[in-house]
């Protein structure tokens, strides 16, 4: 269509017009995959690949919410602490119902329900402060990051809480076809979020608000509600991730669970091609970004590089990804 009008010079013109920026994260993934396969014979084993996907699924999910927030030109630093906070409350309630002879079924409903509810309210709270309070998202979520972690430590007595329900643990360890539950949840959420972003009115408004909120306001868009919804969605997704993470170990550590998730989720979004300044973004890119980080970790493990150096590599990859985006923009 467009190629014809430009007076096609064949393949070279086509290559010129190819949107590298849009697919750069996919290209990076393929390259990284090939290098990893060449470096280690263990890498391509199905068990290892499934393992990588499972490991990244928790932060990848959160990355999807994070992507929405970043598209509005915001940021959510509180996600890691929120994982610990709402799963702590969830597990305490679950155990309380179990020991109060409430039955396992009820306990699961209460525990999971409470976790989701807290995620919803916490996200709403972040969004409320950003929109009504007119505070910078960075400041708001830096504050709530400290608040959520401290509440988790306080409620859980800074210790570890183990769930008394065996069924709870079964959820997280179950496999459907070849993948464990969290991987399926990640894929499902990504599919839904991708449709919301690219096909619905809300998705269009999300980009409009991030691109220029004054224009959005003049175009009769409810800018505050668009932002509020983005933070709330993030809160709920954080809860889903928190539940799945808690089922994996059948426990939550108030001090360790979710530490660094804010950085991992933001990194996945950025590597996936969403500019930190917002205005547009990619959902599947975010998933790819998370997987790229996962493969790097996996490779460093397989090559027995010190785990202390993994942060260095991750950090450099993030900086590199943004650098490349800058060049293309």
């Amino acid at each position, binding site marked *: *269509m*467009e190629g014809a*009008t*430009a*007076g096609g*010079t064949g393949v070279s*013109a086509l290559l*010129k*017009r190819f949107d590298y920026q849009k697919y750069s994260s996919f290209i990076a993934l393929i390259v990284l995959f090939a290098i990893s396969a060449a470096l280690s014979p263990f890498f391509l084993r199905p068990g290892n690949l499934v393992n990588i996907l499972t490991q990244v699924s928790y932060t990848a999910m959160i990355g999807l919410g994070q992507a929405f927030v970043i598209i509005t030109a915001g940021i959510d630093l509180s996600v890691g602490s929120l994982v610990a906070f709402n799963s702590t409350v969830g597990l305490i309630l679950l155990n309380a119902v179990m020991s109060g002879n409430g039955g396992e079924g009820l306990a699961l409903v209460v525990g999971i329900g409470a976790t989701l509810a807290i995620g919803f309210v916490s996200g709403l709270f972040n969004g409320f402060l950003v929109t009504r309070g007119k505070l910078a998202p960075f400041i708001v979520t830096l504050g709530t990051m400290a608040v959520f972690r401290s509440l988790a430590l306080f409620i859980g007595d800074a210790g570890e809480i183990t769930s008394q329900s065996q069924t709870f643990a079964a959820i997280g360890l179950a496999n459907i076809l070849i993948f464990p539950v969290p991987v399926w949840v990640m894929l499902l959420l990504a599919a839904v979020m991708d*449709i919301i972003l690219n*096909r*619905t*009115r*809300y998705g*269009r*408004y999300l*980009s*409009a608000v991030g*691109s*220029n909120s*004054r*224009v*959005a*306001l*003049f*175009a*009769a*868009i*409810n800018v505050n509600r668009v932002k509020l919804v983005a933070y709330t969605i993030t809160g709920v997704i954080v809860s889903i991730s928190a539940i799945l993470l808690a089922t994996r170990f059948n426990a939550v550590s108030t001090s360790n669970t979710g530490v660094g998730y804010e950085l991992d989720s933001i990194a996945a979004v950025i590597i996936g091609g969403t500019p930190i300044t917002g*205005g*547009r973004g990619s959902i599947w890119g975010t998933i790819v970004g998370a997987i790229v980080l996962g493969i790097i970790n996996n490779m460093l493990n397989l090559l027995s590089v010190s785990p202390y150096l993994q942060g260095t590599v991750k950090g450099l990859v993030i900086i590199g990804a943004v650098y490349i985006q800058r060049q293309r923009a």
Partner: protein
Amino acid sequence: MSGVLLSTVGIGKEFSSVPVLANVTIEILSGEILGIIGENGAGKSTLMKILSGVYTPSSGSLFFEGKPVVINEPLDAKRLGISLIPQEFNLIKELTVYDNVFLGSELRARGGLLDTRAMKRRTTELLAELGVEIPPEEKIENLSTAQKQMVEICKAVSLEAKLLIMDEPTTVLTPYEIDILFKLMRRLKASGTTIIYISHKLKEVKAICDRVMILRDGELVDTRPIADITITEMAQRMVGRELSQVFPEKNPPEAEVVIEVRGLTVPGLIEDISFQVRRGEILGLAGLVGAGRTEVAETIMGIRKRTSGEILLHGKPARIANPRDAVRSSINYLSEDRQGTGILTSFSVVQNATLVSLESYCRSILDLIDRRAEREATLGHMKRFSIKARSLETRLEFLSGGNQQKVSLAKTIDPGPSVLIADEPTRGVDVSAKQEIYRLLSALAREGLACILISSEQEEIIGMCNRVIVMKEGRAMGTLEGAGINEEEIMFLATGAGEGVR
């Protein structure tokens, strides 16, 4: 006038193999004011960006003072003494006048600290030379648009620019301010500065320039001494065809009042503004820049909070607290600030065109966007407005200013409003696009739209409006109708020349 200051030989520029400038050979004479005119997308801005180092040409060569030069970046141009004063000013609003004048070439005292005293003194001297009264310690944000422009010029003069390129300098100025600018330009010329003057306003080109160059579709079509060409000829050479009458015939409005505003007041901005607009009527809001016209529009749209006054639609009070309410009440606003509040440059043509009316393209409870309907509607607008874009998916940042403006207008009328407030609808738009916009507004009025037209261009107000309210300092100074709508009356009211007399 002696000798050639700058010349180009066969300059061309392509963007992803699309030529926007082809084989342009020009000579700019030392000490002249050279007008460059052409339609949007004719290549004026591209040529100027090449001369000032923003773009590098794909072909051809440049000679400055007879020597071949390569201008790869703005710094190269600066060293040669070429300064560009862009349409959007490059001033830092939190800093003072003298800070801005010396931005990037600050004077230092011993020890590396800024020598504020010297900078202030030099700025005062420069401003005095230019004959402008602006206190050097004033912050840029407190200056009027015209004053900001003077600061830009002062900045260029401080660099001892030999060639000053002015891109559409008068679009944001009032007639009085334009006079001051022209005096300043003549003074600069007398002191040996060469000026390239780019404008859509042919009358001004005729008034100030020594020669004029005409670009069309990326090629130089004519160069002539200004005395040898009439304004009509200029317009014809630009467009490449005969131009018919600029303004369409005015339609008589119908009896039904669509919108009525009573006693609209926003403290410090507008006071007690009342008017009615009928079906098919175009009501003009005239006045100098800063008279409060845009504020009236923003108050009606619910962007500014009014302390008193009411808005009635079809005789019934309308509750408007934000732009959403206004759009729901079928009032739409084409803002004067295209980049700041009008369009999303990172969005495509389609996405911009349907931004306000998106709800009507959504299906099912999931709010899925019906992309085909969206594309069809946009295609209709593209035809109606003759928007030039590669495709519906082209992002607005790749469109020329005139085409961006047309998309902005498409966005505003796509919801099918019954009231349209068009704020400077033809700002930065070329002659033929202007005509198209006039025809379109007129056609919409004939279909029953009530239109409020805000414009700083007298001709536009005179040519388009059924009735005109002239504003000054937030107040309505008077209403003109029929033959009473003429330049003298408007200026009389707008400048307050009649105050105290009547």
